[in-house]
Structure formats: C-alpha cells, structure tokens
C-alpha cells in the first residue's frame, strides 16, 4: 500500500505543506462541482484512458522534466498503437518505474480494454487517449488550457467514459 510515509522526506514535507485545499471543490466553481451521470449501460459505452505517467511516443517531443513548476502539456496516443511502444519521461522519482517499464498496461491498460471490448463488457475504445506528466506544482495552465482541451477532444470523439490513472 502506498502511504505518504513511503515517499522520501523532502517530497513528503513538500506534499504536507502544499495547499491542496486550494483545489478542493468549491460551490462557486462549476467545473469542480460537475457531475455527469452515466447514461448508457457499459456494453454501449466508448471508453478513453488518461494517465499522468508521462508516457509519449518516440515521434513526439518528450515531456519537459526540467520545468520546476511542471509541464502541463499532453500527448495524444492513438488507440492503434501497442502500449509497449510508449516511452516514459517522468520528473518524479518518488515512485518505482520498473513495473511500468515491464508492462505499460500497469498504468495505460489499453490491451485490457481491447479484451473487455471483445468480450462485450464495454462498447468501444476511443480513437484517441491522452498522457500528461503528473508532477505539476503550478496547475493553472493545466486547469485553464490543457485539461479543457483534452476534454473537448474526448467530447468530439463522443467518448462516454474516461478512466484516469496516476502513478
């Protein structure tokens, strides 16, 4: 089990002092309070994956691991690729990357979704999925630009369900 105590001291002290409450839901902020109930049975739903594992394809620019406030950009990942083609560029060494390097499905379970679709558990797989690098300390660009842009693209692809995975 992951607990804050597992993370190295410097990072843990940072997390303890970080103003997470600033980003808690607020009644005046409709985005933070949004709830979209599922309108269809799962076997009719189109599913997309979003991860903050910093995965990207070889022909995409890697995430900027040197930006101290974090890189808020995202990479679009086609459903046609094999997850094992994804490369990993993550700023944080607070977690063990070896599992993901052996099996990208550990954080980007595209192969599992194809199997579930074949069995009829879900209806379809979105044509485009998205990867961020999670170590975003100053998230204002994420909130104002990149997260809404990904949301717009998912809506354009008529996605019903997004499954999000941190590392």
């Amino acid at each position, binding site marked *: *089990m*992951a*607990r804050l105590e*597992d993370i190295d001291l410097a990072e843990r002290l940072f*997390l303890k002092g970080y103003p*997470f*409450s600033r*980003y*808690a*839901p607020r009644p005046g902020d*409709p*985005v933070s309070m*949004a*709830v*979209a109930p*599922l309108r269809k049975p799962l076997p009719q739903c189109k599913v997309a994956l*979003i991860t*903050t*594992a910093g995965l990207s394809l070889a022909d995409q620019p890697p995430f900027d691991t040197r930006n101290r406030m*974090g890189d808020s950009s995202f990479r679009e990942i086609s459903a046609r690729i094999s997850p094992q083609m994804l490369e990993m560029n993550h700023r*944080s060494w*607070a*977690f*063990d*990357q070896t*599992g993901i390097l*052996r*099996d990208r*499905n*550990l*954080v980007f*379970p595209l*192969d*599992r*979704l194809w*199997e*579930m679709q074949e069995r009829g*558990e879900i209806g379809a797989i979105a044509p485009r999925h998205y990867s*961020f690098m*999670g*170590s*975003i300390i100053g*998230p204002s660009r*994420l*909130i104002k630009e990149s*997260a*809404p842009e*990904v*949301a717009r693209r*998912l*809506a354009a692809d008529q*996605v*019903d*369900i*997004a*499954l*999000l*995975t*941190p*590392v």
Partner: protein
Amino acid sequence: MCHQSVGLIQRAIEYTGITTVSLSLLREITEKIRPPRALFVSFPLGYPLGEANNTELQTRIIRAALALLSRTDIPVLEAYSL
C-alpha cells in the same frame, strides 16, 4: 502531485458531460481533491493496476473502477478489496 493532476483533469472532463473515474494510490491526497469517483487501490506508487503482466488482476481493477460509474453518492472514494 500526480493525484492532484488526475483530479483536476478528471473534473474538466466531467464538466463536458463525460462520466469519469480515477484510480488512487494515495488516499490522503484524493480525499483532499475529492474527484467525483475514485477507486483507492492499496498498491505501491507506480503500480495503479496492481502488477505488471497480471492480466487478471488488471482486469478486475478496471471492472471495479467502472462499477463506480453507476453510483449516485458523489463524491465516491471506494477501496478496492483484493
């Protein structure tokens, strides 16, 4: 910080009318961000789907996460039981 980023992205997606669910490895952080639906999995950081190359476990976790989509008691933070 990944958990905060996931929560913020999750809300932006939910706001466009798409139903979302996230996995969480750090309950303390997810409790502060309160995304609409999250499944807490008690695995180490870097292992949200449990184990590398364990197809069955990964599938069970995805099913448990998708099962939260029909819940109406938002926000939902449920623990995955092995």
